[in-house]
């Protein structure tokens, strides 16, 4: 038996026990109950419920819109985070606080506000519709609502990582002859990528389950702009709790697989760069550029 390693905080056993109980109560218990409920239905029945034409269309809309919203936020969230960390400008703290507002706002309020803004006579809609771009009451409206609601995820996960990348690293890369693009693509981006993926995954997961903001702007037309959470409500409206659970379980299974894939990708990229310090990477990069 080796001597127990010295830890900063004592009580590993207690903490682990607490973690397990806490996670079980909060996550495993409700999810388990849901799956147990769904197991009243056979696997074949669950598939049948989830593969009706209306359900399939809703799954398609939900996943595509969520993916699109998370992608938009991955790109623009990164830019926002970069600017918030790297550039001083007046009102920066205010802008920084603004980023969290979509979290604080009740989602129904967000949905109604966005619908009013993008409707044919709204401030934005009245300019977009003459261009042939209808946002409110179309699938595009769903993407807008989801992008709004999930904005904070990417910004808040990427921000601390950018803060950790010292500007000296970029200077070193530059002094070793790396171009601006090389510095970004070989030095900065690899360091950011795992955090960016986490932000993307969080935004994506949140978008999948979003209901309140979407129903007010989606239009909710069958086969066109119905989302899965709306179909679940529709089942509950029929007192069909089993059917609702079936849809929820399928949704959960697909989301879990996707999140697992994103996590695996993240783990892989994080490991690839694990042993290479940014400065050494810069040096290696510069050597490569000279050769």
């Amino acid at each position, binding site marked *: 038996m080796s001597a127990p390693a010295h830890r900063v905080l004592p009580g590993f056993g207690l903490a682990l026990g607490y973690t397990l109980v806490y996670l079980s109560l909060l996550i495993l218990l409700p999810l388990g109950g849901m799956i147990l409920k769904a197991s009243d239905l056979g696997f074949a029945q669950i598939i049948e419920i989830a593969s009706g034409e*209306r359900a399939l269309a809703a799954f398609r809309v939900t996943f595509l819109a969520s993916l699109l919203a998370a992608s938009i936020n991955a790109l623009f969230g990164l830019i926002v985070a970069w600017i918030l960390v790297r550039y001083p400008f007046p009102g920066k703290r205010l802008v920084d606080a603004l980023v969290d507002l979509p979290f604080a706002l009740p989602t129904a309020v967000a949905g109604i506000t966005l619908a009013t803004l993008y409707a*044919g*006579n709204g401030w934005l809609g009245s300019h977009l519709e003459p261009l042939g771009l209808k946002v409110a009451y179309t699938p595009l409206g769903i993407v807008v609502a989801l992008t709004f609601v999930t904005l904070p995820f990417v910004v808040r996960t990427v921000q601390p990582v950018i803060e950790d990348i010292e500007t000296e690293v970029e200077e070193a890369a530059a002094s070793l002859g790396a171009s601006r693009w090389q510095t970004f693509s070989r030095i900065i981006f690899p360091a950011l990528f795992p955090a960016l993926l986490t932000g993307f995954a969080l935004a994506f997961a949140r978008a999948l389950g979003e209901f309140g903001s979407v129903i007010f702007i989606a239009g909710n037309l*069958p086969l066109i702009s119905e989302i899965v959470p709306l179909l679940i409500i529709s089942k509950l*409206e*029929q007192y069909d709790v089993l059917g609702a659970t079936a849809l929820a379980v399928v949704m959960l299974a697909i989301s879990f697989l996707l999140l697992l894939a994103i996590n695996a990708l993240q783990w892989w990229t994080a490991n690839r760069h694990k042993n290479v310090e940014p400065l050494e990477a810069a040096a290696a990069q510069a050597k490569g550029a000279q050769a």
Partner: protein
Amino acid sequence: MIRSRRLSLLLLAFATSAALADVTLLNASYDVARDVYKDYNPMFQKYWKAKTGESVEIKQSHGGSSKQVRAVADGLEADVVTMNQANDIEFLADKGLVAKDWTKKFPNNASPYTSAMVFIVRKGNPKGIKDWSDLAAPGTQIIVPHPKNTGNGRNTYLSAWAWALRQPGGSDKTAQEFVGKLLKNAPLFAAGGRDATTTFMQRRLGDVLITFESEAEMIAKEFGKGEFEVIYPSLTMQTEFPVAIVEKVVDKKNSRKQAQAYLDYLWSAEGQENAAQNYLRPRDAELLKKYAAYFPPVKTFTVDEVFGSANKAFATHFKDGGTFDQIYVAK
């Protein structure tokens, strides 16, 4: 020890605050019933105090009708339910919480007041909308809440269906075709009744909004009378607002007497007048005459007359695979 004593003190505080009134009643109600019961509850409290010397505290719980009913089924201790759809109370009857013959426990199918589905059109009625057939005409846009997920939308759907059924040569087949044509004119399905109103009045989308007659007065208050006109179609649904006692809860809380009186009082002169003042059609014929300016005569049908029962109508039209789904998913 100290902590548990503190906890029991806290619980005691809760208990005594509830005990200040002799009895507390909880009324689980649908969403837009707020105004009706806000005025009604003090009226009943005064009446009950004068009659028995007992003070009653009345708590209100509001929410989507079917959500409320599910909460009651899951243990929300409501003494009475006051809903806007019969099939919601039917659900509680199936669960054994409400008497099987609840519609017979009070007069008028246990619905103290009614409303009707009407059309709201823009000022001057530019599209000349008069009846259901105009709603299915090409180029007309209708605004209606989701027919599958909202009571308001379902009432609209069934009204259009019943109208088509009553036309010369009308059958379920022609009715389904007609409703299909009508729904094609909906650019969106609003999330709920109030959302549909906002979409029509504020975002100015669509040519006609189909909603409760009682909602028209709310719109007048909110957006001004000069903005719109109310059109009464040749036939429309008389919507009921059924009430029931939750047997299990009143037995447990020993509050049957008060709950019964609370609902009975809805049919009193004062209760009926309150309904009329909230733009709901009173059952009392005299009062209906008194408020004739608000309630012009309109030919109505009830769900029971045309569709057998609320439950049957729901099963045929709004369950998965029902006529609504058939209109969208051709199979």
